[in-house]
Every structure is written in C-alpha cells, then in structure tokens.
C-alpha cells in the first residue's frame, strides 16, 4: 500500500497497480469466434480488461482500436489461413503509427512452417489449438511492457 518515495514524484507511475488492457481481435473472414471469446473470458477472469471487437476486423480497424484504447497487448485469432496476408499489414500499420510498446501475439490455425516468419514480423507469441489458458495468461503478464506509462510516447 505504501507509495514509493521517489525523489522525482512525477516519474513515479505505477504500471503494476492497473489492470492490463488487451485487445482481442478477429481479423479476416472467419465466421465464428468461440475460441476468441473463450480467451477473452479467461483473460477477464485473470483480472485483465479485455476489449473485444467482434469478427471480420480489418488490419486498419485493429490498429485504430488498439491506439484509441491504448492497450498493452493485441491478441489476434485467425482460423481461415489468411494470416500471412493480414499479420504483416497489422505490424506495418503499427509501425507507421509509431506504436512500438504494444505486445502482439497470435492464435488460431497457424501452420508450423509459418511460425518463424510470423515471429520475424515482431509477433512474439503463437498459440495453436490445445494451448492451456494459463499459458496465454502467463505469456501476456510476462511480456507486456512493465513501464509503458512511464515512457513518453
């Protein structure tokens, strides 16, 4: 409960006492989003604030929402196989907008041979079918930038 007694009070911004904000996004033309909803619910139960935007999101919509909501992480779920078209576009738009402090991860049907390329885009985690919820929750907690608020954007 006690506050840190820093000399420069304005730099004392406690990122750990606020809930992690996550955007769960479903890009592409997948018609069903049960998996994304299960993940959204699990993250909520882990104490996070989950912004869920529904299906058929374009890369522009995802990045626009991530900026306005100032999320700590974006989780994209995709089943249709369009990931190699959509993910680079999302990463490019983030870069164009100078968003470099947001954790990006992906889930859904991602063939093994694509994973190195996906990771090379800057997408830090790939979670296929059968992944334990605890694993995703731990991944988000451990990889979101701890000092986002203390950094000038």
């Amino acid at each position, binding site marked *: *409960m006690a506050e840190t007694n820093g000399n420069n009070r304005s730099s004392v911004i406690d990122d750990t006492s606020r809930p992690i904000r996550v955007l769960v996004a479903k890009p592409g033309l997948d018609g069903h989003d049960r998996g994304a909803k299960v993940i959204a619910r699990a993250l909520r139960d882990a104490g996070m604030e989950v912004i869920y935007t529904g299906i058929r999101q374009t890369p522009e919509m995802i990045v626009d929402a991530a900026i306005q909501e100032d999320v700590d992480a974006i989780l994209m779920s995709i089943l249709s196989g369009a990931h190699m078209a959509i993910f680079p576009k999302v990463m490019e738009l983030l870069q164009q907008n100078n968003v470099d402090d947001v954790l990006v991860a992906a889930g859904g049907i991602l063939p093994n041979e694509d994973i190195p390329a996906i990771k090379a885009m800057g997408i830090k985690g790939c979670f296929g079918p059968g992944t334990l919820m605890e694993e995703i929750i731990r991944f988000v907690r451990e990889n979101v930038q701890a000092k986002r*608020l203390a950094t000038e954007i």
Partner: protein
Amino acid sequence: MQNIVERLLNGDRRALARMVTLIEAEAPPARRYLAELHQHAGRAHIIGVTGAPGAGKSSLVTRLVRELRTRERKVGIIAVDPTSPFTGGAILGDRIRMMELAGDPNIFIRSMASRGSLGGLAASTRDVVRAMDAAGYDPVIVETVGTGQAEVEVMRTAQTVLVVVAPGMGDDIQAIKAGILEIADIFVVSKADKPGADQTVAELAMLLSLDPHRRQATWRIPVLKTSALKVQGISELVDAIQKHQVYLRESGSLAQRAQRQVQSEIQNLILQTVVKELKRVVSEEEWHTLVEDVTKRERDPYRVAAELAVRVGLKQRYCIFD
C-alpha cells in the same frame, strides 16, 4: 518534442489515448495535466446515454454518431462496461456494435471499465470527458453500464441525459419508481421496429403526466421512438438533443448544472486525496490488523476511523472520541 498536453490539444490521437490511460491509472502527473486541460475544456456538449442492459444503448449511440457525422461534428464516445467484482477484470464489448464507426479520424471511441464504481460510470469518467473535450471533440457521448434503477451518476457528468427504454421492459408501475427514470432529459424508446413500442411510449407519457413539477417546468421531456435497425427517428433525436442544448443555455440551467457538478467534483477530489493519504500512512499489515480487530469485535469501526482521521491530518475536533 512537444509534451503530451500540447500534442493532445493539437489533435494527436495517441496522446489523447495515453492521457486517458494516465487518468484511469490515477498516475501522479494526471492531475497536473488535467489542471492544464481544464482551461481548454468546456466547449463540448456532453450527452449521457443510459438504460437497462440490452436496451440498445450501443446500437443507438452508433446511429446517433453517424447522424452527427453527417452534420460534421467531431464526436468522442466513452463506453463504460462493468468490472467483475470478483476478479477485477472486464470484458469491454461496446465496440462490437460500433464497428461501422471504425476508421473515421473524427470519431474517438474509448472503452472504460467501471473499476468498482457503482453509479453506472467509472470514477474517472468525468476526467476522461474533460480530456476529450479539450482535444476538440464535441459532443462527447458517455454511455453508462447497463443500469437498473439507481445508477444516476451520469446526471452529474452529462448535460443532456437520454434514458433508453426498450419495449416490453416492464409495466407502468416500474416506470413510477424513483431512479433513472427521473433523470431523463429525453426518453428514447428503442427497437421501435418491435411490437409494443407504442405502448411503452404511452406508458412513459403517462408517467410524465403524473409529474407534479411538470406544469412549471420549462423543458418538456420528449418521448421519442427510434429504430437502430431501420435507422428511424435518429435525425429527430439529434434535433431534440440540440434543442435541449439551446434550452440549457438560454434558461441558465447549463450554468446551474455546471456549478453543481464542480461542487461534487471538488468534494470527490478531496475524498480521493484523503484515501490516498490513508494508504500512504497506514501500512498494509496494519490495515489488515485493524480490519481483523474490528471483524472480531475487539475494536469498533468508529474509533478506528476517528484515529485514522487524525493520522491523515484531519483536526482533532472532527473526531467524536476526544
């Protein structure tokens, strides 16, 4: 590089988004920034939208914003959803129904979790309104969590309150009850494409006719029918909102409301400061022991509160056990 306040004032959306995060986190610089933003705010018309869960608030807001965009307004939206009292987490899903507003640089949507506040908004919603207002958004629309009968906090934040009622949500006895039905400046009967809308309009009109203050009142609360699905009644609703805005200005109510809001705002800020100071001077262990003692009835909460009040610096005479 410009600081975050200047960038926000210049229309930088990321600066606005980060400002909101700082405000929500009650980060130490937030109050300093807000103090700067205060002089730039005050231009936006603040519209509150409240109603029961599933009444159609988000769909209505979406249509409302589309109409406001055709009138070339730059619109800010704050959509509040409830925080789980058990886990502290939240699912913020209002964007699902606002999908068609995506990609417009003159619309800014921010979802907020209520974070333990019970009045239908989050504790920091008013400050977030201030940030959007200063950033040039006008109007700013505040959509509350789905409300029951008592979540009336929105009336202390908004200038025009829309209470959204879906057809078939209750008989006319429900409508006479105190609470959110009393705070409406405009009633909106949503889902007018469904059966029962006319009856709901009639019931609300009946309720209004029973109001003893109505004859002296200079604003006649309209009851409007809308259908978000068929895009009906939306332009009439925007007209009514604008009419209310003019009424507020000309009748002097706007100034009155502003004064009431500032009063409660200053009181809230003082309360927050006291709570913060309390957290600073009382360690978690001590707090735990105090709570335990009171729970076991070895001590009483009144004496404990009085002692703590002195420790946060309140004068002795406010304490009842001198």
